[in-house]
């Protein structure tokens, strides 16, 4: 069953690619000025990879975007996870922080972009701020939910054995909430990429979003497609890295998977 399923999938993808080639290059049903042919796509990819486009090669644009995503994501996780742990642990902290959170949360991360540009300009700082807002919320909420979902028995057993507060957090709360924390991180990572691309499309000096933006202004569909493919590839690659980290961090779950 699995093999026939894989076979159908491969056949579908292959025939879609073939259809793309035929419609753009043989019959000309699709106007290549609006939708690039596979050859144009390949040429654009070669162009940006070797000579560069929009003031940089594919590698330099990618690394620029990747750096911003990693920075914003790391700061958001470093603030969000402890805050979620605190709110999950102490009902008083929750009562204090939650109303502010509820006030700010409905504003979509993308809506912070104009404000970030007003405050910090078109450089990297504004991007990191927006990514932070996007990645922060899922980290907090999922960590919080994870801590609240821990069985009270587990905590009571640890406390009965005289576990200190710090040790309890490190050896009971974090491991027990880890699956939810990683769910939050995965959502945060996705949100980071979405927001970064949006912020770079609004205005940037380098990065994959800038490639898309310049290509749109040049009416260069093949390069737009290359930019999109690069965004997708990096989103996929960083998600894979996070999945590996997750599996390493929680070896006890591997039995179930």
């Amino acid at each position, binding site marked *: 069953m699995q093999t026939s399923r*894989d076979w159908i999938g491969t056949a579908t993808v292959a025939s879609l690619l073939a259809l793309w080639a035929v419609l753009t290059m043989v019959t000309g049903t699709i106007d290549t000025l*609006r939708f690039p042919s596979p050859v144009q796509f390949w040429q654009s990819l070669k162009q940006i990879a070797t000579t560069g486009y929009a003031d940089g090669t594919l590698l330099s644009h990618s690394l620029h975007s990747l750096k911003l995503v990693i920075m914003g994501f790391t700061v958001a996780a470093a603030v969000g996870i402890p805050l979620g742990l605190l709110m999950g642990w102490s009902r008083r902290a929750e009562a204090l922080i939650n109303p502010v959170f509820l006030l700010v949360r409905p504003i979509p991360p*993308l809506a912070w972009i104009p404000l970030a540009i007003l*405050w910090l300009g078109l450089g990297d700082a504004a991007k990191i701020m927006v990514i932070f807002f996007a990645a922060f919320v899922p980290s907090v909420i999922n960590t919080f939910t994870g801590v609240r979902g821990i069985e009270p028995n587990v905590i009571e057993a640890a406390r009965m054995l005289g576990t200190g507060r710090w040790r309890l957090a490190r050896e009971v709360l974090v491991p027990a909430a880890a699956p939810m924390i990683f769910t939050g991180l995965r959502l945060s990572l996705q949100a980071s990429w979405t927001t970064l691309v949006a912020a770079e499309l609004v205005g940037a000096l380098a990065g994959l979003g800038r490639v898309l933006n310049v*290509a749109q202004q040049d009416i260069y569909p093949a390069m737009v497609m290359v930019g999109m493919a690069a965004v997708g590839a990096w989103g996929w690659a960083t998600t894979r890295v996070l999945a590996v980290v997750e599996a390493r961090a929680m070896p006890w779950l591997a039995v179930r998977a």
Partner: protein
Amino acid sequence: MRSSTTRPPSTAERLLLGAIGLASFLGLWWGMSASGLVAKQFLPTPLDVLARTQYLLTEPFAGATLPEHLARSLERYAYGFLLAAGVGVPLGLLMGWFRWLDAMVTPVFDGLRFIAPIAWVPFAALWFGTGIGGPIMIIFSGAFPPCLINAYRGARFVDAKYIEAARMLGTGSLRTILEVLLPASFPAIVAGLRIGAGLGWQSLVGAELIVASAGVGYMMVQGQSNISTPTVVAGMVAIGLVGLVIDVFLRQIEAFVRHRRGLA
């Protein structure tokens, strides 16, 4: 600190703490701009934002008043979301029933899923223009995946005995989908619609920031280039409020559906 488990805070204490939290947030905001620590131009006080919102309700900015901008945004949103639900839910159900369709669509879907919805903006602009077609495509790409995934999962995880019962009675594929899978996966579908609605609204805001000639996002970008921070913040508040209303409304529907099913 650990006294919090032995004695949970009372309602009054919770309300007080919440009020302190909100007051210190607003106080910090106010203090920073009123004291001149941050230039008022960049951080207007909450009152400035309120006054600006009131002004925008009646006076046009960037070609329209705030309600008119909102109406334009909501119109696009409605088209895009209905399209996403209209394609995503039936396709998800069909994929849950026909294994060959599942095997065909899943690899294509997985390949496209990692492209952030917002990355479709330049393409959408090239294809459908910046009027209504482009933004609709962006909302669609944001709202479509949850609609599809939830309908698919809902259909896949229907209790096999219902399907077997239906098949034993000689029910055809179409009728099984409409009369067994659809009702059985309804709660999952509604949950997917709610998630999709939220993502669609977000994507719309993003699309309007980049390419549009009307709508709340466009108003905010104009506010940004005129260095009118109160306009930008007023736009953020409006977007947040509308998003909240949409979410609360769909949550009610979801709770109602789950209640009817005895799920909650």
